[in-house]
């Protein structure tokens, strides 16, 4: 665990950057729900945030990021469409992650 502790600040910094990218993407999608570039960029950020949160033992953040990642994966692969309801869900998950990140 000591090994991981040395990287806590870098994790927090980069996780907050991932979150900012997700929030920026959500703003774009509210105006243009089929913006492929925004969906792709948000997917990459959610994927990375999930992955490194699990590595750092931040299970709750990882689980929330996985919900966002899975939803965006389905949208980008045309398995589902981005509804208003889904946007609200993604926004809520993002806000929960943001709150958790302030506690690290």
């Amino acid at each position, binding site marked *: 665990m000591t090994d*991981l502790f040395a990287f806590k600040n870098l994790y927090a910094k*980069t996780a907050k950057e991932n979150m900012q990218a997700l929030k920026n993407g959500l703003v774009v999608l509210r105006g243009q729900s089929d913006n492929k570039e925004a969906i792709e960029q948000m997917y990459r950020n959610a994927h*990375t945030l999930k*992955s490194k949160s699990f590595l750092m033992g931040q299970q709750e953040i990882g689980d929330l990021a996985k919900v966002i990642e899975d939803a965006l994966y389905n949208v980008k692969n045309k398995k589902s469409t981005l509804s208003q309801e889904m946007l609200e869900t993604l926004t809520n998950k993002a806000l929960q992650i943001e709150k958790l990140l302030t506690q690290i």
Partner: protein
Amino acid sequence: MKILLVEDDIFYQKFYSTKLAEKGFEIFVASDGEQGLQMIEEVKPNIILLDIIMPKKDGFEVLEALGKNGTLKTTPVLVFSSLGGEQDVQKALKLGAVGFVNKSFYDIDSLLTKISSIAQT
């Protein structure tokens, strides 16, 4: 031994390059697939650790390019991702990767064992 880590996230770049450098490897880092292809030519690594979800060119596209230019015949590629779905792993192996490491689960001994076994083949 030279290892090229092709990974877009700064956290993972620093984390794994630090851990592997501590074990005596010479580490080079590329931040996306395009830069990775360029650095493979420049660095001539012994092993490539390749992320999949990246901007510009993803890991699958990099593997395709390395298959076409013959690099995979001489340089083993270990897919280094948290995209652990069986379908994705099989796709990467089919494109010429020699193995898969889930980077979300830090286990340096397991990673070193894989690197060592690949280096000996």
